[in-house]
């Protein structure tokens, strides 16, 4: 008994502190859309490991038992004289397996029911629109002027369920933030609904999970869970117009932006209202660039704008062919977009 307890204790320890498994792991989850599934996962995994161990022992036992018990005979002889016997193995083995199976099935159906609806009505809905290879996020409001759009970085208040309506502008993607809950495929022509809740403040990484073309490997997103007060502050900041550029370089940068970028990108409160690429109104409030690919630093920003096709080959953002002066001005302007 003792070694078995040790194993269970070890597994429990592994389950309790799962930071070893990395930022995309779901062996430990941080919200009610994840908890029951994680428990179910550990339960089924332990059952599965036990089944494999038992079968391995039975196999080894059978191989050596038969060999030890019946050596010395003429090797051409059979081990039995009749085509019979052994059926108890099937009756008992299948009987026990079926009992475990029925238990697992009931547990599964129960968890399916539990996670199909959030514990209470979500406070709001985020419209997630996936495109090759980034995520557009719209926070709707009854007052249209309070609706705002951002990209690749979802902010949610801690302790509240949030509803997500996901759809695609092009091919199939999958919306997945493993530490908060399971996947929801993002399919053009239909709107799928899911919900997530984070019980601890933090940054939770997500990635597209269905193959969607050249940059499928580079289509991440972040979920930032923050206190309700911080979340409201973030919302208000996102709703504000971008500040006017102050220095001549920034002003020149805005002109470059208007001529080179505005067909695809929007900046709230300016003439730039393109809807093909991410909304950049508050670009500098985000942690990453290019859908989770690079930390959002001035150096990375210059590198990314200067050569998107070498940083994220296949990306829909073309190499802009800017002079270095124009590029510097553009980066200076973008850095005002807090």
């Amino acid at each position: 008994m003792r070694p078995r307890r040790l194993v269970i204790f070890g597994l429990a320890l592994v389950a309790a502190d799962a930071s070893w498994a990395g930022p995309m792991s779901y062996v430990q989850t941080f919200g009610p859309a994840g908890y029951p599934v994680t428990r179910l996962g550990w339960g089924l995994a332990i059952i599965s490991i036990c089944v494999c161990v038992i079968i391995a022992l039975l196999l080894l036992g059978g191989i050596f038992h038969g060999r030890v018990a019946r050596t010395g005979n003429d090797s051409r002889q059979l081990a039995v004289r009749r085509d019979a016997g052994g059926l108890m193995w099937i009756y008992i083995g299948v009987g026990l397996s079926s009992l475990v199976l029925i238990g697992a099935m009931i547990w599964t159906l129960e968890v399916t029911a539990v996670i199909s609806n959030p514990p209470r009505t979500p406070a709001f809905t985020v419209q997630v629109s996936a495109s090759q290879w980034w995520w557009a996020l719209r926070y709707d409001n009854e007052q249209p002027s309070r609706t705002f759009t951002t990209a690749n970085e979802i902010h949610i208040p801690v302790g509240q369920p949030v509803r997500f309506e996901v759809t695609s502008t092009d091919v199939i993607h999958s919306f997945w933030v493993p530490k908060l809950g399971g996947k929801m495929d993002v399919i053009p022509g239909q709107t799928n609904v899911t919900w997530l809740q984070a019980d601890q403040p933090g940054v939770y990484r997500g990635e597209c999970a269905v193959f969607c073309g050249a940059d499928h490997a580079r289509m991440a997103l972040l979920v930032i869970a923050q206190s309700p007060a911080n979340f409201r502050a973030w919302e208000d900041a996102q709703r504000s117009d971008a500040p006017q550029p102050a220095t001549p370089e920034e002003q020149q940068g805005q002109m470059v932006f208007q001529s080179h970028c505005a067909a695809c990108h929007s900046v709230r409160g300016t003439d730039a209202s393109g809807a093909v690429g991410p909304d950049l109104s508050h670009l500098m409030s985000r942690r990453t660039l290019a859908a989770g690919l690079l930390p959002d630093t001035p150096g990375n920003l210059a590198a990314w704008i200067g050569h998107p096709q070498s940083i994220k080959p296949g990306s829909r953002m073309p190499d802009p062919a800017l002079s270095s002066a124009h590029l510097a001005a553009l980066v200076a302007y973008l850095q005002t977009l807090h």
Partner: protein
Amino acid sequence: MTITETRRAPVIAQATDASPSSDTLRKSWEGPSGWRGWLSTVDHKEIGKRYLLTAFGFLLIGGLEAAVMRAQLATPNGHLLSAEEYAQLFTMHGVTMIFLYALPVLSGFSNYLWPLLLGSRDMAFPRLNAFSYWVFLFAGIFLYASFVMGKGPDDGWFNYVPYASREFNPGPNIDVYALGMVLLGVSTTVGSINFIVTVIRMRAPGMSINRIPILVWGTLTASVGNLFAVPAVSLAFLMLWMDRQLGTHFFDVANGGQPLLWQHLFWMFGHPWVYAIVLPAMGIVSDGLPTFCRRPLVGYTAVALATVTTMVLGFGVWAHHMFATGLPVMSLSYFSASSMVIVIPSAVAVFAWIATIWTGRPVFTTAFLYFSSFVLLFVIGGVSGFMTASVPLDMQLTHTYFVVAHLHYVLIGINVFPVIGGIYFWFPKITGRLMNEKLGKWSFWIMFVGFNVGFFPMHILGLAGMPRRIYTYPSGLGWGPWNMAATVGSYVFAIGIAMFLLNVWISLRRGIAAGPNPWNAPSLEWSTSSPPPVYNFAVIPNVASRYPLWEGYMDDEGRDRSTIHEGLLLDQGRETIGTTALDAEPAVILKMPDDTYTPLVLALTLTLAFCGLLALAWWAVGVGVVLTLLAAMVWLWPERKLSQIER
């Protein structure tokens, strides 16, 4: 006008391969020699060997593709391959292994073995058999034609729309895949029909339906499954091709098409197909393991019924590939429960194998090592399938490396291990020489260790959140070390495969002569010479039990004995006996066709039509179709000497 014989009482005689009557048989059954014979043969043994060799060729190609991908993924930020190269590699790897290796290799075993297992002289439709092989070969070449030009299929083997539509994938990549799959479907369909009719009509007298080997049950079940499953995928690919080239809108969202329709059609086919590529392999084990445990299989009836049950259930589980697509909770629950129920027939088979080992006396041959280790791999692949069958858990597991681990345990564990064990088992029958046991055991252990070191970590990668089909990944996510293990392990596995091939090479030349029955095995194929004569059996045996060659070792007071060397002679040309479906009572003398080029010609003209469709060269399509119809007419032209004779 000649008078054809319509009724005849066949001669019953005693004969062996050394008897004078066997010379007559040899003359009737031997085709022309040289390249003419090679192109025109309809002998199931030749066709079976070709299937095996071609499938192993594809296995090696698919393995090389995997090796390149594993090099890319060994470390974070790998830059050996571009995203597009990687996409073509993982697509062709899947297509090759699933469609061009896994089923054809089993068709190879079944084609070679069925008439020998059933006590017949050929399959029911020998020409159709040849046609099935040629179409498979041409479809395989067709599917690779654009890959060598850098324009191979690149949307994964399940080819989800709309990424596979012309808007997002304008090149020939997907057209090749779509048309190649429709062409391959022709081969699978005619092959399946041939297997089904053969088992119903071509068994030796006395081999009632409850005496056929489990391999036959497996292939029969797979064939019936394929007949129902393949139309769904052929239709889906045809619709996709029409969307791409003729402007239809089946999957076109902008015009009311449905991307999920593709997934339903594909998986209605895809899941039964998975069972089609494992059930015959499970049959290989169910027949091979008892030989090396020196006892009959425990629970023959239960295993046979479990085989059929698995396939029946397999048609009701397809949506478990779609748990995250937003289906209603009610249907998710149904598909989750139905998927889990598959555990029950699987458990029947597992405990039957374990009971056979426990109550038997294992002989440690290389084949036994493959078959017994297969049981463990089957269970590991089974329990990970059980985990993914659980809807809420699958919403985490799906699209990750956990699924990659699962499917490789299923396809390598349940297909490759039994297949290689099966080669060690039947190699002496096919070639007349035994394989080297020492090298065999070394290659087994290297394969077994390499496989587990390579593929078990993929479960952990899945739990660590690594999505499938990413061509590179950043550091800092904890995936690097496990990926390195997977790469190293899979290379070790490849070394094991190479040692197996080396063993085949050496044993072909220097293997010890095997004799008819080196393993003292129970079934009919071991009663004839190794390699078998072109006519298989000097007389058609009479079968009185499930294990005709073991009757002497069993207590069988008062029971009839099988007669191996006394039976229907049937030496007036190419003849064999047709028997009734359930009890295998002799019913009709079947006149079998001569060697002919028509299957090859028909396959070529059909392929020409498909090449025309690919190039949108309608004249080529027209020429191909007309020639195909002409070849079919020549094929079907009534021949007096093929009119069947009542007994």
